[in-house]
């Protein structure tokens, strides 16, 4: 698997946030609760989790109790801040209107799975992309080459500031070469990291 690494400024990093809404993969501890995963493995602050991550879906089901909902192999975990409107209030975790979506709520029964390393998919929405995006991009995410090329192929090479650097498997390459690689391997998974080296 290829490792693509970019270094640039915070503005460039921000351009990759949109990609995070479509989903990406990370290594995760299967059999642990969402709370354990986000706090212990990812390093999200507990207060932030309690106050800002107000809407959570595990495999499309609305989660109310993050201490009980368990990550399985291949699970998709979607994280969002509080959302507007009646639908937003209904989908909010533990909200007073949760009964209005009981057909799609995460079940109450506790699951016990053997704890082990695995892979799950994460989707980051709205305000959380800006807050948590840097965390994931720094430690690295697995994405389809197509998803990365989908984001950057629409941009001209001016999209990359002159002082940004791209390395593929440790070798420095330019923007066009990166595009060629992504096109050639569009169905392949790659490991992507981004480091903010300076702020403008």
């Amino acid at each position: 698997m290829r490792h693509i690494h970019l270094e640039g400024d915070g503005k460039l990093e921000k351009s990759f946030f949109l990609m995070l809404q479509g989903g990406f993969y990370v290594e995760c501890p299967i059999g642990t609760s969402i709370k354990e995963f986000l706090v212990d493995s990812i390093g999200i602050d507990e207060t932030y989790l309690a106050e800002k991550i107000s809407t959570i879906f595990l495999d499309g089901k609305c989660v109310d109790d993050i201490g009980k909902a368990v990550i399985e192999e291949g699970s998709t975990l979607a994280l969002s801040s509080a959302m507007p409107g009646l639908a937003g209030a209904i989908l909010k975790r533990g909200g007073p209107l949760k009964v209005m979506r009981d057909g799609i709520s995460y079940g109450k029964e506790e699951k016990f799975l053997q704890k082990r390393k695995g892979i799950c998919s994460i989707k980051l929405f709205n305000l959380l992309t800006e807050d948590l995006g840097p965390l994931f991009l720094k430690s690295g995410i697995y994405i389809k080459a197509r998803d990365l090329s989908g984001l950057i192929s629409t941009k001209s090479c001016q999209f990359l500031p002159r002082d940004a650097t791209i390395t593929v498997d440790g070798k420095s390459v330019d923007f066009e070469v990166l595009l060629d690689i992504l096109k050639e391997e569009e169905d392949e998974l790659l490991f992507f990291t981004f480091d903010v080296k300076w702020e403008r």
Partner: protein
Amino acid sequence: MDKILRIDLGAEGGPKAYETPLGDYSGLGGRALTSTIVASEVPPTCHPLGKENKLVIAPGLLSGSAAAMSGRISIGCKSPLTGGIKESNAGGQPSQVLARLGYAAIVLEGKPKGDDIYRVFINKEGVKIEVDNTLKGLGNYGVVEKMRAQFGDKIACISIGQAGEMKLSGASIACTDMELRPTRHAGRGGVGAVMGSKQVKVIVLDDTGMAMRQPKDPEKFRKANTAFVEGLRKHGVTGQALPAYGTNVLANILNEAGGYPTYNFKVGRFPGTSKISGETEAALETERGGLATHGCHRGCVIRCSGIYNDKDGHYLTKQPEYETVWAHGADCGIDDLDKIAYMDFLDDDIGLDTIEMGVTIGVAMEAGLLKFGDADGAINLLQEIKKGTPLGRIIGSGAAVTGKVFGVERVPVVKGQGIPAYDPRAVKGLGVTYATSTMGADHTAGYATASNILKVGGFVDPLKPVGQIELSRNLQIATAAIDSTGMCLFIAFALLDQPETYQSLLDMINAFHGISLTSDDVVALGKKVLKTERDFNIRAGFTKEMDRLPEFFKYEAVPPHNVVFDVPDEELDSVFNW
């Protein structure tokens, strides 16, 4: 704001304006006022396009003052789409301007003889009603440009496009925004057709020389307004999510929940969601030099709207809202944001309800008239409406009519009105509201998530399971109450979580009017409005059998969660038992 301006379009010798005191309607604003006037003055069995129907346009209780978020305008009538009572509200500038001109409402009544169309101009000198046949056949943008040339840019306009002139049931009424563009619409229920039946193309409002409305207790009012604004700014939804991304921020989460109706409600997830989400839309707007954060009227502090520019950086339309992007997008299988934005522009110009049009085109796609995903075909259908071709008139009449004409069984409507952007099988509580609302399928009918704070039907303990019927009832009551203040419904989230913000809203109303409204009074008002509306519908011939979702929702499970709408009819019938 102690008088009503009535315009009798059918008066002997031509349309005449006269004023009446508020009388029994005193103390009412927004939806409470429109629905009460319609219920007491319009015969429920009249033809919606006939002389006995009335079009009532009312600002809110605090419109025209310095109160934040007070610029919604309510438009009521008997609906040509549902056959029942209708209140449809919009943002934009007209509410503030109309209130400063001193009117609690404008009522268009009667029906003109002949086929002239009229322009109404209202300023501090009075009212002028003139024939202006040069406006015939114009879209809303063209009408407003003409008004700008004639009256300058210190005006606000309420107008109809070609759809309203053709009296199509999907026709909306446009209100101009801060830039004097006709982008804010009272969309639902075919209110534009009723304005068209009165042959009034545009109402031009000019409040030059009129002062801002002053509160009875300025100091208390100022303090309450400051606290109210602080409450909105500090809340995550009203202070961050809505300003940053607009209402379309909901697309991703509804899609994730499997409640994002796709391909005419066949599935609950759309593969192209991230191409049309609020996050993508806001980024594109910023990149193209538009605006991702913008108010629809002066005095809005949430600013959930924006400006959408085309690829070359030129204005195309205002930021299309969640329901619009869904209707023209996922429901029709279209994932091209530029084409969706262009359809939003066409809807605004022709004067069409974006939800009804998206749902209708979805039904036309199901009928095989065009393929799901065919964005150019969808644009052509809107152009057909503009041209007034027979096909265009069918589409412009909404999903129920289109479904009948093309023999489609799966038509997502309640009481003839298209179901909006939340699948009622996934979010069943919303299904209860769609089914039972006095307005037909309407996502805003139970929008006031603040019912808990309002203590509608007693305090709902968040830890105690309460049925969806009870919750839907409470939400509908709370919504009717907030609609009656004329405040933007998006304040509801901050009210839900912050009791002190709700209190500051009450304080603001009380300080302004010198009254002592309590939370109980607000709830009582909400109940009264709903009762009035429901009573009108019963007198118009509605029965409990009309409080139902289309039957395919009961037996067709929606993926990915494969759920059906299984709330029993008897439970639906108990929503209005209080």
